[in-house]
C-alpha cells in the first residue's frame, strides 16, 4: 500500500478510535439501529444487522458508521443527544488537531505528503452526504488564487443542483464567484495554513444566477486532507433536509421507490432504485418489460401470480430473484395502486428492497442446520455401532468368575456421552502353562476407530499368551510394536498386564503408560510400583520392565483404566482417594463377596471417559472356594 494511502487510513482510524472512546461502539450501534428502525419501520434487530452488514460492505468499523447514521438521522433536531454527538465529532476532530496529520508536505519529496486523488475518491464514494475535496491553485508568489474540486461524494449536490461526479473539475472562482474573499474562502485559507478544522454554521450562500435559489443555508465543515481540503456540507432548508433524509433512509435500508403512471406512461425511479438495478440514472428507468425479463425463469410463475392478484385489487408483496449484471439479487417489491372508481389502475407506487443479504444468510443458515442434523445422525449411528462392537468383542461377565487360584470380577462403565464410547478393554484368561494373565487397557480416542484398535489389541494379547509368552513385559513389547506398525491414524493406548502364578502366588506385572495396580491388604491400600514403560504406539523400540509381589489370602488387587480416577478438575491423587477408601472399607468388613461389593460401590469419576475395572483376589483353596465357576477364555 502506498504511503499516503496509509496515512489517510490511519487518519480514519484516529477519528474512529476517538469516536469509540467517547461513546462505546455498542451503544452507538444500538442507538443508530433504534433510530433507523423508527424511520424505516423495520425491527430494531433488522436495522442492527443491516448496519453491521453495511459496515462490513464498506470495510469500516460499525461504530463510526453508526455515529454517522445518528448524525444524519438527527441532523437539525437540536436535542441534547444531538449536541452530545456533535461533541463527539468535535472531539474526534480535536484529536486530529493535537496530532498533526502524518502527511504534511515534506520538502523535496512531494509524493510523501500527497494523497492520491483516487484514494480520496474511493473513500468519498462510500460516504453518505455531501463531501468534496478541493485542491488549492497557487499563483506566481505562492498565494492561493482558486480551488479546484478533484473528488466528490455521490450524494454531493451544489446550489445549482450539480451532483457527484459532475462537480469534479469545477473551479470555485468560476462556479461560485460570490464566495471568493468571503467567510468560506477565508476559512479555506486558514485551514490550509494551520491544519485546524473550521466549521461554518449556518453559512448562507447567495446566488445571483437565474434558476438557482437565491439563498441557501448550509452547515459547512472544512478539514485539511493531504494537499487539499475536505469540505462537508449539509443543507438547512427543510425540504432539502427531508430529501437528504429520505435518500439516506433509502440507502441504509437498501430500498428504492418507484412510481408508474399508467395514464401518462411516466415512470419515476428514486436514486437507490437505480443503484439496486445498477443502472445509470441518465438512462432513465427500465421499462417494465425489461425489468420483468431480468427475473429468473424459475420465479416467473410467482411473478405472474402476484401480478394477477395485484390486478384484482390486492396489494403486492413478493420477493423475486432478479439477474442484475452477473449477480442474482433477491428483490422484495411492495406495491400499491391508485385506482379510479371503476377499479382501473391509474398509478402504481412501489418500494423495492434488496434483501439478497438476508436471503443468502437464511440459505446459509439452513445449510448449516442441515449439516448439523446429518452430523448428529451419523454420530448417533456411530455410537450405536461402537457400542454394539464393544458388546461383541468385549462381553463383560455379569458375576465374578474363577480362574486357577484367582477369583475376579469385571466392571465396565461406558461413557455417559453418546460419542464417547471408547476403547477400554480387559483380558482375563489362563494360559496353557497354567498361568493367569490379567490386563486392562485404554485406547486413545473414542468411537469406531478406538473400538477397532481395542479389538486388535485384545485379540493379539489372547493369541500371544497362548502361542508366545506370558511374560507381561514381552507381551507389552509385542502390543507396542503392533500399534506402532498399525497404519491406522495415530493409534496409541495404555495398558497394564499382570501374570499370576497360582502355585507360588506371585503376581508379576508390567505397564505401558498406565496407572499401576492398587493392592489392598488388611484394610490398607497402596498403589503398587510402576516399572518403566511408556504408552503403546509411540516408539517401537522401547522395552518394558516388570515388578512383582507375593499375594496373600484376603488381598485385593484392582486394575483399572483412568476413567475411574481421572477428572479434568482434580489431580490423579484426588481421584484415587475415594477408590482407596472404598477398598479399605471392604477389606476391613471381611465380606464373603468382597468383589461384588467392591464393584457395586465404585463409581467412575469422569463422565467423558469410559472405565474398565478388573478386581481380583487369590483363592485360598481352589477346592473349597466356589469351584467350577465359568471361565473366560476369550
Amino acid at each position, binding site marked *: 500500500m502506498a504511503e499516503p494511502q496509509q496515512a489517510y487510513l490511519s487518519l480514519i482510524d484516529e477519528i474512529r478510535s476517538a469516536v469509540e472512546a467517547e461513546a462505546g461502539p455498542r451503544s452507538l450501534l444500538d442507538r443508530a439501529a433504534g433510530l433507523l428502525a423508527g424511520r424505516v419501520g423495520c425491527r430494531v434487530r433488522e436495522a442492527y444487522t443491516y448496519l453491521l452488514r453495511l459496515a462490513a460492505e464498506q470495510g469500516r468499523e460499525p461504530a463510526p458508521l453508526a455515529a454517522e447514521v445518528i448524525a444524519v438521522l438527527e441532523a437539525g433536531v437540536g436535542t441534547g443527544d444531538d449536541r452530545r454527538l456533535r461533541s463527539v465529532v468535535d472531539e474526534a476532530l480535536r484529536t486530529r488537531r493535537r496530532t498533526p496529520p502524518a502527511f504534511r508536505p515534506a520538502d523535496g519529496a512531494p509524493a510523501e505528503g500527497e494523497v492520491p486523488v483516487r484514494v480520496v475518491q474511493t473513500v468519498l464514494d462510500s460516504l453518505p452526504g455531501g463531501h468534496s475535496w478541493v485542491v488549492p491553485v497557487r499563483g506566481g508568489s505562492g498565494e492561493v488564487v482558486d480551488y479546484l474540486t478533484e473528488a466528490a461524494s455521490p450524494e454531493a449536490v451544489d446550489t445549482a443542483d450539480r451532483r457527484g461526479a459532475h462537480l469534479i473539475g469545477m473551479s470555485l472562482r468560476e462556479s461560485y464567484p460570490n464566495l471568493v474573499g468571503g467567510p468560506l474562502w477565508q476559512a479555506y485559507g486558514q485551514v490550509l495554513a494551520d491544519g485546524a478544522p473550521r466549521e461554518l454554521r449556518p453559512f448562507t450562500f447567495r446566488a445571483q444566477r437565474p434558476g438557482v435559489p437565491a439563498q441557501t443555508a448550509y452547515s459547512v465543515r472544512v478539514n485539511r486532507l493531504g494537499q487539499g481540503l475536505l469540505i462537508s456540507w449539509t443543507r438547512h432548508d427543510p425540504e432539502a433536509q427531508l430529501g437528504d433524509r429520505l435518500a439516506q433512509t433509502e440507502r441504509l435500508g437498501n430500498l428504492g421507490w418507484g412510481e408508474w403512471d399508467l395514464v401518462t406512461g411516466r415512470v419515476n425511479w428514486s436514486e437507490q432504485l437505480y443503484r439496486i438495478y445498477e443502472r445509470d440514472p441518465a438512462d432513465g428507468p427500465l421499462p417494465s418489460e425489461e425489468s420483468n425479463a431480468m427475473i429468473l425463469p424459475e420465479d416467473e410463475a410467482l411473478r405472474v401470480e402476484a401480478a394477477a392478484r395485484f390486478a384484482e385489487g390486492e396489494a403486492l408483496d413478493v420477493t423475486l430473484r432478479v439477474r442484475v449484471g452477473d449477480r442474482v439479487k433477491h428483490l422484495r417489491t411492495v406495491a400499491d395502486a391508485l385506482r379510479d372508481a371503476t377499479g382501473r389502475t391509474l398509478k402504481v407506487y412501489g418500494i423495492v428492497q434488496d434483501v439478497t443479504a438476508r436471503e443468502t444468510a437464511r440459505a446459509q443458515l439452513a445449510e448449516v442446520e442441515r449439516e448439523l442434523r446429518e452430523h448428529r445422525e451419523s454420530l448417533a449411528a456411530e455410537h450405536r455401532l461402537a457400542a454394539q462392537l464393544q458388546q461383541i468383542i468385549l462381553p463383560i461377565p455379569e458375576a465374578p468368575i474363577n480362574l486357577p487360584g484367582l477369583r475376579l470380577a469385571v466392571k465396565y462403565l461406558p461413557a455417559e456421552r453418546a460419542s464417547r464410547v471408547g476403547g477400554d478393554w480387559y483380558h482375563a484368561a489362563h494360559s496353557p502353562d497354567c498361568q493367569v494373565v490379567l490386563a486392562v487397557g485404554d485406547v486413545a*480416542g473414542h468411537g469406531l476407530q478406538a473400538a477397532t484398535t481395542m479389538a486388535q489389541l485384545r485379540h493379539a494379547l489372547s493369541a500371544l499368551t497362548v502361542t508366545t509368552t506370558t511374560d507381561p513385559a514381552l507381551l507389552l513389547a509385542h502390543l507396542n510394536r503392533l500399534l506402532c506398525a498399525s497404519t491406522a491414524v495415530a493409534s496409541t493406548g495404555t495398558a497394564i498386564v499382570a501374570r499370576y502364578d497360582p502355585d507360588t502366588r506371585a503376581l508379576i506385572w508390567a505397564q505401558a503408560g498406565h496407572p499401576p495396580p492398587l493392592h489392598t491388604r488388611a484394610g490398607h491400600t497402596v498403589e503398587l510400583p510402576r516399572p518403566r514403560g511408556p504408552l503403546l504406539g*509411540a516408539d517401537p523400540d522401547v522395552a518394558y520392565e516388570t515388578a512383582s509381589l507375593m499375594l496373600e489370602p484376603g488381598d485385593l488387587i484392582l486394575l483399572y483404566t483412568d476413567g475411574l480416577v481421572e477428572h479434568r478438575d482434580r489431580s490423579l491423587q484426588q481421584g484415587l482417594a475415594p477408590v482407596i477408601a472404598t477398598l479399605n472399607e471392604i477389606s476391613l468388613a471381611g465380606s464373603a463377596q468382597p468383589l461384588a461389593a467392591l464393584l457395586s460401590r465404585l463409581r467412575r469419576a469422569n463422565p467423558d*471417559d469410559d472405565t474398565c475395572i478388573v478386581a481380583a483376589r487369590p483363592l485360598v483353596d481352589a477346592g473349597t472356594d466356589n469351584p467350577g465357576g465359568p471361565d473366560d477364555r476369550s
Partner: protein
Amino acid sequence: MTPVSIDPRDDGVLDVILRGEIDYTNAAPVTQTVTDAVDRVRPVAVRVDLTEVTFLDSSGIGVLITGMKAAREIAAEYRVRGPNPKVLDQLRITGLAELFPVEPAGPPAAAGPPAAAG
C-alpha cells in the same frame, strides 16, 4: 483463545504453543496444525510449550506423540516444556517423559542452537 499457535524462529526452532484443555474436542485440528507446521518449516528442533495447558486427555497425549513422530521423521529434536504439576503427572504416568525431554517452566531459551536437554 486458540488451543495452538506456531512460531517458527530464526534459529530453526519451531515453537509450538498449546493452551487450555487439549482433548478429544480439539485434538484433531491441533494435531493437523502441528504436523503441517513441522512438514512445512522442517525445523532442526520442535519445542512444545505446555505452560498454558490446564488439561490433556488421551487425545491430547496423542497430539504430543504425533508431534514427536513428525519431528523424528525429519530427524528434528523434540522437547516439551512447562507442564503444570497435573500435566507433568500425566506425562510421567504415560511414560512420555521417558521418550522426550520434559523441561520445567521458565523463560524461553535465548535464541541460539537448541541444547539437548535431559
